């Protein structure tokens, strides 16, 4: 919880320097992999704003918050790390940027910038206590899937049926990942996970049967449907993820349709719903996909060699995803010749301490 740990420190800096005219903003950004307290990625701005509200309430910080746009415009424009920090002057010039926010260093910087304080606020003065209420429904019933290799988050998008006048929330949200074999050779392992979104205060209704899903390929009648089903569990309710690891094949960029069927009840037991929802699933790495190990560099670039489409042992700019090419080159192309060689990729892995083939979880 690197960000959470630093919130009290940030609060002290805010309380000391905001009165001196310094503005502070916490930019609430996307989370793809399930975070603290089971929070999962927001699919709508409304959901992301609800996340922000929960964060604000639980962290008990008085620092003003911003919410990044659903296409992560602020994070991308600043090439910001998940807990990055920037100080900007009144003219809009960047005075300081840090890969990782550090309130102690920020305090020292601002002291140099605007002058010393008579009595700096200390964390102990705040009496802040992070609050994460107990989940009302059981967890730990379904053992988590053990992964033996690093997986890359795939591009997925929820599909709301056009005929529904009031869109039904995605009570459970999809996380899809592919291994190197699937992404490079077109044949490998596909991870499918469904995570109950705590925003909606619901749980699986196990007596109604296990979650089921199937993947089809629109327009390709030769594609053999891939499907999965969770077993029926003894416990009536839980909120554990439903996870699957299946063999899968497809070409890079292929788009599939995933349909999931499940039943949820609200925690107050006032309703139960049978839900069927659809997603598009693209065999392509989502550059905004998270890493369960919390490694931003991994989620940003992963193994650059995965983009070596022509298999010549190096990656050129035109082989990289256009929207992330510059950022990936910034981090991996050490001699700035717009080509990432195998040795540069290896150095990159050394830098982020993740070796090819190791899990990023």
């Amino acid at each position, binding site marked *: 919880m690197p960000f959470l740990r630093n919130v009290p420190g940030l609060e002290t800096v805010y309380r000391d320097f905001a009165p001196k005219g310094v503005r502070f903003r916490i930019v609430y950004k996307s989370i793809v992999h399930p975070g603290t307290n089971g929070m999962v990625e927001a699919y709508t701005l409304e959901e992301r704003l609800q996340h922000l509200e929960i964060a604000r309430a639980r962290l008990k910080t008085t620092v003003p918050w911003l919410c990044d746009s659903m296409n992560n415009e602020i994070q991308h424009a*600043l090439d910001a790390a998940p807990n*990055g*920090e920037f100080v*900007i002057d009144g003219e809009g010039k960047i005075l300081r940027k840090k*890969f990782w926010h550090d309130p102690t260093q920020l305090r020292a910087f*601002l002291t140099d*910038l605007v002058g010393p304080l008579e009595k700096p606020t200390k964390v102990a003065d705040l009496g802040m206590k992070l609050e994460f209420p107990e989940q009302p429904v059981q967890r730990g019933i379904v053992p988590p899937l053990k992964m033996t290799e690093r997986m890359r988050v795939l591009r997925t998008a929820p599909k709301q049926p056009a005929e529904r006048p009031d869109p039904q929330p995605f009570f459970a949200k999809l996380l899809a990942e592919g291994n190197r074999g699937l992404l490079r050779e077109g044949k490998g392992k596909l991870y499918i996970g469904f995570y109950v979104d705590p925003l909606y205060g619901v749980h699986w209704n196990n007596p109604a049967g296990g979650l089921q899903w199937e993947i089809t390929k629109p327009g390709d009648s030769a594609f053999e449907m891939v499907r999965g089903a969770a077993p029926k569990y003894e416990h009536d309710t839980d909120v554990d993820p439903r996870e699957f690891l299946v063999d899968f094949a497809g070409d890079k960029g292929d788009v599939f349709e995933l349909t999931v069927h499940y039943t949820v009840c609200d925690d107050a037991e006032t309703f139960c719903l049978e839900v069927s929802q659809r997603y598009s699933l693209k065999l392509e790495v989502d550059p905004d996909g998270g890493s369960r190990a919390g490694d931003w560099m991994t989620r940003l670039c992963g193994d650059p060699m995965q983009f070596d489409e022509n298999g010549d042992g190096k990656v050129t700019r035109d082989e990289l995803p256009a929207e992330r090419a510059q950022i990936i080159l910034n981090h991996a192309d050490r001699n700035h010749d717009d080509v990432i060689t195998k040795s540069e990729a290896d150095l990159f892995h050394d830098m982020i301490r993740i070796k090819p083939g190791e899990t990023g979880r």
Partner: protein
Amino acid sequence: MHAAVLQAFTGIATVAAAAAQTTFTERMNARHLTQPPLVGATLPDASGFTAEGKPFALRDDRGHTTVLVFGCLT
């Protein structure tokens, strides 16, 4: 001659020791500093929302020293 070699070796050893003592965060910060937008550059404009859901652009904070910290519930 021996003194020069010893001095060079000591220098290399000092640099190596310093590199070994550099933390992962420090290395990432150092590398991050070389990526755009650079320190001294103008902050790119980008838009998001206030906590209340109203549109907000980074340029709205012009005229004030501003601290931006990224985070979420992790």
